[in-house]
């Protein structure tokens, strides 16, 4: 089974790439890739609860993210130093990520066949 990691490093409404890359992750899972997501740097803001992009006329990233487990994208990681730097409470992130230090992220990267960046 091929392993695919998708990395998110920008805040959710900087551009449309976050939603578009989540779609790629879903399709990867549908095609039986083992898909993981890693949120690092300002990408950790994607996990902030209670987003609502209705007033923008666009899709809400938080809602698309919460549909991921239904598509068998269940490994959701966040960079621990990035979560700290953003002063986010990790227990309130949604979906709840596994926190990884930099060294654990290096190991995660090394395990992949394919790495995509939003």
């Amino acid at each position, binding site marked *: 089974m091929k392993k695919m990691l998708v990395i998110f490093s920008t*805040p*959710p*409404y*900087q551009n449309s790439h976050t939603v578009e890359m989540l779609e790629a992750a879903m399709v990867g899972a549908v095609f039986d890739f083992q898909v993981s997501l890693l949120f690092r740097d*300002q990408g950790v*803001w994607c996990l*902030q*609860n*209670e*987003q*609502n*992009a209705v*007033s*923008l006329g666009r899709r809400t990233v*938080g809602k698309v993210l919460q549909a991921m487990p239904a598509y068998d994208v269940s490994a959701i990681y966040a960079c621990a130093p990035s979560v700290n*730097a*953003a*002063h986010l409470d990790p227990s309130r992130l949604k979906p709840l990520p596994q926190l990884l230090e930099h060294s654990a992220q290096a190991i995660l990267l090394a395990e992949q066949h394919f790495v995509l960046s939003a």
Partner: protein
Amino acid sequence: MALHLVYSIRGFSACHPRLQQEDVVVLLADGVYCAVNPTAADNTQNADLRVMTDDLEIRGLTTVSGKRIDYPDLVELCTQHTPIISWND
């Protein structure tokens, strides 16, 4: 006095050292993260800060520093200041 429209955290870092005393700073788009991040907020204590409510709500942000404004307030601020400078680093 100038009006500074700050679109990102890095935009605030670029804007901040180039402010004059009477200038007003509007945090909008991803600039609103500066209003929740105490590290950025430290620097903002000298600045007259406004935060776009719409952009806070889109991003799920609630407890923030700075006076909240909406689009009509932003238009009003634009009429009171010149030039209007966008910071999008």
